[in-house]
């Protein structure tokens, strides 16, 4: 049997400002109307693989249990298909909340070293910052190098086919002058949030 860990939560486990931070993000303001009806979990295509169902994520978020929320794989399995947000009877922006939680997780680095999804997000972010556009093939290469080198070799056959049909080019997609875009993206105050 695994060693016993305490399951009870004391009030000190709660992060008092966490809920407000999420609530301040556009689309996330109606969190408190949730009646825990579980429609979101019912409709979410990925919920069968999620450690915490979306319903539980909303409950834990609005009560400030930051660690539980950011440690679960739920926010990463969310493919932002918006079915939960559309079906929610209380019109709560659940997908927007998931995005808010992802940016919180990336900001606080609460995920495993080799965990692919946040790495993809940060690689994507860096590439847009540099070139203003994303070169798919290079992005995939960098991702697999960083997280699952073995799998990348397995993709060889598919890689060949894509190259043959002209759908895999090593050309770096770049804007003519990304200067304007770069200035635009630096204009907003980062209020101290890590943008790595």
């Amino acid at each position, binding site marked *: 049997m695994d060693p016993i860990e305490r399951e009870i939560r004391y009030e000190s486990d709660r992060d008092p400002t966490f809920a407000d931070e999420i609530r301040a*993000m*556009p*689309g996330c303001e109606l969190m408190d109307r949730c009646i825990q009806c579980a429609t979101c979990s019912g409709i979410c*295509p*990925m919920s069968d*693989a999620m450690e915490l169902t979306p319903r539980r994520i909303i409950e834990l978020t609005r009560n400030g249990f930051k660690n539980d929320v950011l440690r679960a794989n739920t926010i*990463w*399995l969310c*493919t*932002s*298909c*918006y*079915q939960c*947000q*559309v079906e929610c009877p209380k019109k709560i922006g659940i*997908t927007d909340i998931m*995005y*808010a939680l*992802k*940016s919180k997780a*990336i900001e606080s680095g609460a995920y495993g070293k080799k965990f*692919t*999804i*946040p790495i*993809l*997000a940060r690689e*994507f*972010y860096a590439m*847009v910052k540099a070139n*203003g*556009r*994303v070169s*798919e*093939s290079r992005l995939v290469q960098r*991702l697999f190098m960083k*997280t699952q080198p073995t*799998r990348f070799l397995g993709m060889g056959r*598919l890689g060949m*086919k*894509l190259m043959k*049909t*002209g*759908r*895999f080019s090593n050309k770096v*997609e770049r*804007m*003519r*002058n*990304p200067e*304007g*875009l*770069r*200035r*635009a*993206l*630096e*204009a*907003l105050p980062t209020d101290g*949030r890590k*943008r790595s």
Partner: protein
Amino acid sequence: MRYAYFPGCSLKSSGRAYEESFLAVCRALEIGMDELDDWNCCGATAYMSVDEANSHVLATRNLALAERVGLDVVVPCAGCYGVLAKSKEYFEKYSSVRNAVTTGLAAGGFAYEGRAQVRHPLDILSNDLPPRALRSKVKKPLKGLKVACYYGCRLIRPVSPFDDMHDPQTMDGLLKSVGARMVEYGLKGKCCGGSLTGTVPEAGLPMCYDLLKEAHRLEADVIATACPLCQFNLECYQDDIAKKHPDLKPMPVVYFTQLIGVAMGLDPKDLGLHRQIVPIEPLLREKGILGGEDAKPKAKEPAAAGGRS
């Protein structure tokens, strides 16, 4: 009819066939498509997770470009369409987004007042074309071809200005008007797994498997999509999926604009049919749509302008 055209990163690489077929169809229908000058990546689903405020600035810059040329912007890729449409709606709905976008764009020398509309090919082909424009251009109706129209998520959610959110019909309508037969595809609005097929395949691939299996169950010949990511997931991972599900037979996955192009008798080369991993041409030839006598390459039509980057 003239629009600004936002290709998005995918249409320049894995989704090149979508761009080629879309531009070919537009040329045939005399719809003007001016690619936005120096457009930037829309941020897709990833950028938003890192920096939510700037994701709106990033997306709205493209709308500012469209406003500068005074045209509505057409966004073929469903992913980009969803991101731009949502940014536009949140720009109008939330003052925090509006302030962030206005200050951000101003620093970059741009301005956006919300005039440029975000449109999708399904929308303009269904609603902006004069009634019989498409039907009159059909040379080779797709008789006998059973198509499962797959819309995916971002075309109809969270915003769905041109189609029914629960039972979309625009793609079905268009392909029906060029002679194809539709199957009642219940999973037309379900998620294809998005980027998970690459990052966490054991979670993403089952989604594709469900979609493919259902298409086979309904005896569809081909799945039509309007999104390069969905097309890639459904088509390119069929081998991986078949490893776990040997019963899965190959299912061609094409862009709806390719089928429309074929029905209009356009050159298969211009429609990027040769870019399929799971070939489609044998099926079309078998159905008599890609006719036997002109199977030989016809005299080249004047080089198709644009599109081929």
